[in-house]
């Protein structure tokens, strides 16, 4: 039932945020509507599909089954909280790109947060561990194959991040990857600079 809005103070991605919400409002709707964190998605809104998965104190949880008022006092992590900096990707996020562990992207935030939580606990998961961990997140596009590969790949990279980085095990971030491309770059598609002051060729 409806009720008078109450104030909630939520710690989301390391920031303390406040909002006035109806007691009946789900954490998912609150994240999306009150804080504009729309990376968490509504799929079934009855706790089966996992598209709304967020981390509550590091554990995957259904944001559609939790009221915002219940989340007060916990550390909430959404997909927006995973990337280390704007334009960058976490190792898990990058691994999903490497194996194409997604298609439409709708289940992906929940899937990545679930994988992130698994790898936080277990840096050497078996295939069965991975299958079990993601079994609460439904993906209709991929058939899970490339998702499992992504988690395996991320686990491998995470294990290696503490070792000194060699070029061959470095995280394949954009500059490294582009440098490897065989495509010509010099002179092709560099901004035409010669003409700017004079409106013509030099």
């Amino acid at each position, binding site marked *: 039932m409806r009720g008078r809005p109450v104030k909630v103070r939520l710690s989301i991605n390391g920031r303390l945020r406040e909002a006035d919400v109806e007691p009946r409002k789900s954490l998912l709707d609150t994240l*999306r509507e009150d804080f504009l964190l729309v990376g968490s998605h509504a799929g079934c809104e009855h706790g*089966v599909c996992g598209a709304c998965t967020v981390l509550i104190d590091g554990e995957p949880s259904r944001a559609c089954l939790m009221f915002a008022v219940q989340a007060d006092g916990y550390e909430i992590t959404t997909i927006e909280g995973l990337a280390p900096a704007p334009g960058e990707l976490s190792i898990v996020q990058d691994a999903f790109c490497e194996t194409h562990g997604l*298609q439409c992207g709708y289940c992906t935030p929940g899937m990545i947060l679930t994988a992130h939580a698994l790898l936080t606990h277990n840096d050497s998961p078996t295939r069965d561990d991975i299958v079990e961990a993601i079994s609460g997140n439904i993906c209709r596009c991929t058939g899970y194959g490339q998702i*499992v590969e992504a988690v395996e790949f991320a686990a491998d990279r995470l294990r290696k991040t503490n070792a000194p980085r060699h070029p061959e095990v470095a995280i394949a971030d954009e500059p490294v990857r582009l440098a490897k491309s065989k495509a*010509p*770059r010099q002179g092709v*598609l560099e901004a035409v600079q010669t003409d700017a002051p004079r409106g*013509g060729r030099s």
Partner: protein
Amino acid sequence: MNPTIPLKFVSSNRRVREDRRFVAGQGRYVADIALEGLLHVAVVPSQYPAARIVSINSIEAMKMPGVHYALTGEELAKAVDPLMNGLETPNVRRYPLAVGQVRYVGEWVVAVVAETRAQAEDAAEKVRVEYEPLPYVIDAEEALDPSSPPVHPPHGSNLLLDKTFVWGEVDKHFAESPRHLSFRVVWGRSSTVPIETFGVAAKWDPWREMLDVWASIQMPKYSDQIARSLRIPLNNVRVHQDVDVGGSYGVKRGIKQTVIVAHLARVLGRPVRLIEDRLDNMRAGDAHGPDRIFDVEVAFNDDGIVKSMKMRALDNVGAYAGRSPFQLGKPIGAIVGPYKIQSVQYRAIAVTSNKAAQEAVRGFGQAPTNYAIETAIDKVAAAVGLDRIEIRRRNFIRSDEFPYLIPSGTHYDSGDYHAVVAKVLAHADYEALKLERDALRAAGLCAGIGIAACLEPSGGNSSFEPLLNERNTTTTWMDSCRINVDGLGFVTATIHTTSAGQGHETLAATVIGEVLEIDPDLIRIVRPDTLSSLPSNSPVGSRMAIMLGGAAFHAAQKLKAKMMRLAAHQFGCAEKDVRYENGTISHQASNRKLAWTEHVNIAHRNFHLLPEGMEPGLEVTHVMQVPTGNKLPENGRVQMYPCHSFEFHLVLVAFDPQIGKPQIRRYVIGHDCGTVINPHIVKGMTLGGIAHGIGAALLEEFVYDAEGQMLTQSFMDYLLPSSHEVPHVEIVHHCTPSPFTVFGQKGSGESGYLGSPAAISGAINDAVASLGISFSKLPIRIAAISDAIAAVKAPEVKVRT
């Protein structure tokens, strides 16, 4: 493309550019579109499968907080035209909200608008609708009976389509063949059920007279249908195609939802959105798939050679027609599968019933048809005592017989079915697989091997429309691309449709990069709104590699040709004497070169240096016609799709006979879709398609009870395969290029799904064959298996007790 030049980007394992935004949670789905003053819709569903609407009372609802409007079907029908029907069935009228009568449980009766979705839902509960229940019909066979209650009384019956095609000398072939068999199989009603439901937001600007629409849509001619229904000019409708679609696989076709919010936006002067909740979607999202009974008869000889086939397909399309009856038409383009069946009689029947409306689902009817064909081949193998792979080999079209004309008028482009099967058997070690099956049986389990060989017609034109509806004269189903090189030399290309995860931006960039020999990552791909778009028909029918890939290729070739002409003019030589390499054009004889930046400067700034008649700038467009699709049907025959991918499934399934829960222990698929443009994307499509097929074969069904109530409305009852149900799948690749496409590519968007239900059904039937039982209806749910086994073992149990 000169085949001697090695491909730089096409077929290489490049990342999919769209993935970056999605892994960061930065997709832009329809529910993420923030519009100032947005209002929200909740719908009031019917509780009856058929009833007259006696009265609607919204007085209490309108008093609820935040409520703006309660729209009834009666009011809406006065303002809009009925939604499109594919067949000429003018009395099967379809409006977005029920008018005068409800026709299925869950049908939308009233749309309530409020400041928030929660307020709209609260108010929807207060709407009082008085109904007078009417007779109804759920079962397709009953609906076919002329005495059944017609879902649309003005139409007079429940029959929408009953068309019989005879291709070749069916009677003669049946008479000549020493052996016949017949059977019935049933494809239960399921769908692809994307995790994102359908959603749409609309805004009307009365000063500009512009309707802006953002939708989770995958539908050809979407804006045409909006304009027609609302009776406004098409250039007053602007659909924003830069909305990410959270999965579709055919079903995101929310035209009724769109007409509701568009009308409301005009009436209320505020933007309005409708995002289906899961119940709205499952019950009434117009997103159910085929619901089909096949009666098949085949004529063959003692060697297992199948000469002729008679197929009757009866589809229960639900309460409204739309385009769904056409799903009986597309399979005509591959009606003999990969086999040399010489003649076919095909009777396609579509009936209305008091179930939810059906829409296009991945494969557009091909997966059910393949299930029927593959069941026939398995049964013939059993009848003549042949191995199920050997019988397929004997009936397959041989690689030297392409292009191969099938009886229904389509030429298959290319293939090497025997080679794919040989590769799969070698990879899987078929003999060892059989030993493994036998060992499982010896250990007390039911174990079986399933096999399916089938085609994926691809390239999606719409020839089934004129084939099933003579007044329809469609012979083009084009797609387009525009490329612009800007004044600083950067490349931007356009695609003219939404995408639902198929990687079209990657596709277009890869192809353009290949032709222009520039890094695809440097090419920007944008999606203009529909008013700025070239003609396009959206990603249906496994067509985008062929059609968008083709359009991008030809546009890039035009661009390259323009640059070469421009360069030749500078060099004072003939165009044929210049050479394009990595964006630089050279003239060997004079040892002159023109770099990319120099073309750009000339084209953008030096009109005086352009050849006569050349337009300034570097901008090209290409509107591509479907290869081979250029004729209307003649005598019930037509070239359906241009390309035909092939897939061969080999599956080992085992289960405990008392529990009956199938475990897929091995899944190998051989896949030949010609030249692969992006291997990651094709792999994902195939694996995802197999997962859908596992769902359709074992788990997923929209079940209606005898009272017309839908029993599987949530994900608690309508079961989707999780990572536990989908096994590790091994893909064996083969490449037979298509002669009809620019790189030899074929389609892959429906791959996996088209054969996996047949393969899994075959495996389960192999597992229970020794018990003397078989399953002829999908899905084969756990309970069905354990019940059937218990029934045959019951006497044994009695003896023991």
